[in-house]
């Protein structure tokens, strides 16, 4: 079994009082709670903090934990003989037991012979889905490590892979509930649930806002000035887009119902955001033409600067 230093996780001394442990937990929970923190590693960090707190706030469990002695984080340690006797398993039976699963089972009173049904824990896994899968629908595999209990009641983590179908119309941050696919229940208790939280993977062209999509449409100065027709990408394939004469930078040209499908069967819109670009280097002929244009044009882009300041 690998050692986890719960005192270090909470940043308290081994002599810390229950009050110190509570204060340390609350301070860290405010920073890393998955419902509060936007830190991508927040959930993982919070689990560690919650495990440490669950063990150290309970005098009985803390005493049991302290029996392990002092080790470095991640060190393998031999479980005390009384644990081995209690579980009817030798030290090797503990090899792949996660200490947090062990203390979680301990918390539920499994090794005490309590018979009350205990519901399994819920698990949440973040699933990154390509935009194309959200657009067309499709299946993806989700792998998550879940505890399983052996005949001695010792929890062992095993990877489980689930194939789930992403329906058309799934959205960023939407959850899918896989009922009964979380941690196993004990003493006849129900299994927990697995929640898959969908995130749409960044796309090289399209930016997602709900069901609407945005992409940048670079235009040459002459296309913006006199208008043009061009092929533009959409998730469903290229389409013809007409840019009107006199188009300016930052305009949003709407391609109706070319965005992502919605859950009600409709579709969002696709917006092309215009960006007028100029060549970094121009030939002599081009320069001559620009100069001719400059000479004959009456266009004054900064006309509004000529206001009198009062």
């Amino acid at each position, binding site marked *: 079994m690998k050692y986890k230093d719960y005192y270090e996780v909470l940043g308290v001394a081994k002599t810390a009082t229950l009050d110190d442990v509570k204060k340390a937990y609350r301070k860290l929970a405010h920073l890393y709670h998955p419902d509060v923190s936007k830190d991508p590693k927040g959930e993982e960090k919070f689990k560690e903090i919650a495990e440490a707190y669950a063990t150290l706030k309970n005098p009985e469990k803390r005493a049991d934990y302290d029996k392990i002695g002092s080790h470095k984080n991640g060190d393998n340690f031999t479980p005390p003989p009384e644990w081995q006797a209690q579980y009817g398993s030798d030290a090797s039976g503990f090899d792949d037991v996660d200490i947090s699963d062990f203390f979680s089972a301990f918390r539920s009173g499994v090794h005490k012979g309590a018979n009350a049904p205990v519901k399994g824990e819920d698990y949440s896994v973040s699933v990154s889905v390509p935009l194309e899968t959200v657009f067309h629908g499709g299946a993806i595999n989700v792998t998550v490590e879940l505890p399983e209990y052996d005949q001695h009641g010792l929890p062992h983590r095993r990877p489980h*892979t689930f194939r789930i179908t992403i329906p058309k119309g799934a959205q960023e941050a939407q959850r899918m509930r896989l009922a009964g696919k979380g941690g196993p229940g004990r003493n006849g208790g129900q299994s927990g*649930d697995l929640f898959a939280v969908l995130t749409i993977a960044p796309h090289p062209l399209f930016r997602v*806002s709900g069901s609407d999509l945005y992409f940048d449409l670079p235009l040459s100065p002459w296309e913006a000035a006199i208008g043009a027709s061009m092929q533009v990408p959409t998730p469903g394939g290229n389409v013809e887009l007409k840019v009107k004469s006199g188009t300016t930078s930052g305009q949003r040209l709407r391609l109706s119902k070319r965005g992502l499908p919605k859950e009600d069967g409709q579709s969002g819109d696709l917006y092309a955001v215009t960006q007028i670009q100029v060549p970094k280097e121009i030939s002599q002929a081009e320069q001559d033409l620009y100069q001719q244009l400059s000479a004959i044009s009456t266009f004054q882009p900064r006309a509004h600067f000529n206001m009198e300041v009062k």
Partner: protein
Amino acid sequence: MNVQIAEWTLLNGQNACSITYLRDVSGLSEEEINELIENGLLTPIDSKAMAKIFPMHSIVTVSSARRLRDDFELDSHGMILALTLMQRIDDLQSELNLLRAQFK
């Protein structure tokens, strides 16, 4: 690799569930769920109906409420305040995402 074909429920606004279902899934009491409704954090599909039903995405709210209650050892007032502030943050985040999508 052993792949299990999993049945799932999409927690969206199209599917619906009862208050009993929300209670069973989240571990909140019906009283706590009713407090969430009173404070506008959960909205039944038809508020005048005798047996209230809720959009399936309400599961996200009740699960979050239960986690906050347990993990921060909050009473119902604290839980509701935290959820209200989190929903405001979510709304602001959505606006920020929209602006980022529009203007990169």
